[in-house]
């Protein structure tokens, strides 16, 4: 995690930016991240190289897989892009979102396309399941304007962008998977990705801009963080249970790491920006009611009630319909 110290501006609202990550095979994790806060803008981004369709190994890249190279090079590309974006005096608003996405898209496509060219092309292997240097991406770009936080969620694939407030966890992004699947059904159906970043360039970066004035936590996460719980509410509960036990922001981070590690079967990366709470005690206290409610309404009933029914009740907050 990189964080530039600066006074005023976005920093006046920012409490913390942190990253939690782990890999299944040491030094071969196919996730990567980029998290940074400048004076005016911040970004929390995660990238999950797709090992199933990018399993070709490249000798010139220390025999790493295309998936590994894609996520790591995408993170580096976004870092370079963000530096230029901050230096360029850009604005973040509904009017500029499309241009920002187009610029990001071209940067990622150029980088991966160039790597493909210099690494000997696409190789002999073909088929609809094969992609050259494939990775998911979830990035949240945010800024402070007129005492409001403006956040632009940009994504491709099934890495997710969330906002966590005392009202609950809301998934802002929509997974690029087959129609008809939602966050609960996809835990078991394991649907195919219909869109992801890759060297071919024919991918789409989805985007959504939201603004808010209250405190919040912006979260980008790869599927290793949330995809191994039996329901989406357990992911939120893990975050809040960890917070209730933590004595500091660093403690929260460590407990999140332990909470994910206990369940996951994949590399995992979660990048978060905590905004507007001021101090840890206030932050922790703000979520006590939500944690209790979540436990009472959902978690305590998981073994006895129908998961689909619980999900139906929960999804209004989860998909932002109740906000």
């Amino acid at each position, binding site marked *: 995690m990189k964080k530039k110290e600066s006074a005023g501006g976005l920093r006046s609202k920012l409490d913390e930016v942190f990253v939690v990550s782990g890999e299944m095979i040491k030094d071969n994790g196919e996730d990567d991240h980029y998290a940074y806060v400048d004076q005016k803008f911040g970004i929390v981004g995660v990238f999950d190289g797709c090992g199933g369709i990018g*399993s070709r190994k490249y000798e010139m890249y220390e025999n790493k897989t295309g998936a590994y190279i894609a996520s790591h090079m995408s993170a580096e590309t976004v870092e370079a892009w963000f530096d230029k974006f901050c230096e360029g005096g850009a604005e973040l608003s509904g009017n500029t979102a499309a241009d920002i996405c187009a610029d990001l898209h071209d940067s990622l496509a150029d980088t991966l396309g160039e790597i493909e060219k210099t690494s000997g092309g696409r190789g002999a292997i073909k*088929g*609809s*399941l094969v992609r050259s240097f494939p990775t998911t991406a979830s990035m949240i770009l945010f800024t402070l304007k007129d005492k409001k936080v403006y956040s632009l969620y940009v994504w491709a694939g099934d890495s997710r962008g969330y906002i966590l407030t005392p009202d609950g966890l809301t998934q802002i992004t929509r997974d690029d998977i087959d129609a008809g699947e939602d966050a609960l059904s996809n835990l078991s159906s394991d649907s195919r990705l219909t869109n992801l970043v890759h060297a071919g360039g024919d991918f789409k970066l989805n985007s959504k801009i939201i603004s808010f004035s209250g405190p919040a936590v912006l979260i980008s996460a790869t599927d290793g963080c949330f995809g191994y719980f039996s329901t989406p509410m*357990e992911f939120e509960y893990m975050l809040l249970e960890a917070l209730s036990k933590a004595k500091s922001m660093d403690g929260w981070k460590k407990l999140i790491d332990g909470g994910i590690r206990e369940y996951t079967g994949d590399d995992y990366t979660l990048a978060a920006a905590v905004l507007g709470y001021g101090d840890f005690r206030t932050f922790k206290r703000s979520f006590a009611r939500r944690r209790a409610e979540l436990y009472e309404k959902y978690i305590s009933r998981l073994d006895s009630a129908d998961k689909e029914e619980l999900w139906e009740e929960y999804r209004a907050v989860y998909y932002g319909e109740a906000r």
Partner: protein
Amino acid sequence: MASNYKITYNVDMVFCIDATGSMTGVIDMVKENALNLYTDVSNAMAKKNKTIDKLRVRVVVFRDYVADGDDAMLVTDFFSLPEQTEDFERCVRSVQAFGGGDDPEDGLEALGYAIKSKWDTEGMKKRQVIVVWTDATTHELGFGKSMPNYPKGMAKDFNELTAWWGDRQNSGFINQNAKRLLLFAPDGPYWNTISDTWDNVIHFPSIAGEGLGEFDYAQIIDSISNTI
């Protein structure tokens, strides 16, 4: 959290093996790959802390209905591994390369049998994987339908076989999310059409007489294990 929660992985694989005369040079390598696949995929998954809860393998040996009569298509039920490992090994090791007649073989009929397998519908996460090993292009579906042992109920043409595989709009006889097709086959009719138009396909174009290199085999293992 929910107690006793654990994601289960159920994997079905169907190996379609071309056992015509032209495969003589590579049939032993194909058989070894088929026999090692279970162990290699399991090991690759274990490295990621995943365990296959239930794995079944089925074998379809194909040749040419017109040239090979009763030896044209040999189809087994699923073997549950590791319980039926010995039976599975005996079956694979008994495959001999002979016959075939002309160059194209009846690989599409083999694929038809494979797609219509009695797939496992249990388990939280499922994979239904078909692997085809051949050094030949294929006849059109129904090329050998005048032969007495040609199967009744086979897809009548390539379009129907495509529908059996299914797509995002119309599901076929195999789970849309779970299905994977790995082709080790020449870049010629109809394999190239399948590679270009069917979803969830990985095609390793082969050249007659040349084996499947170590590098590509490792990639096949990674492709399977990483998508489970």
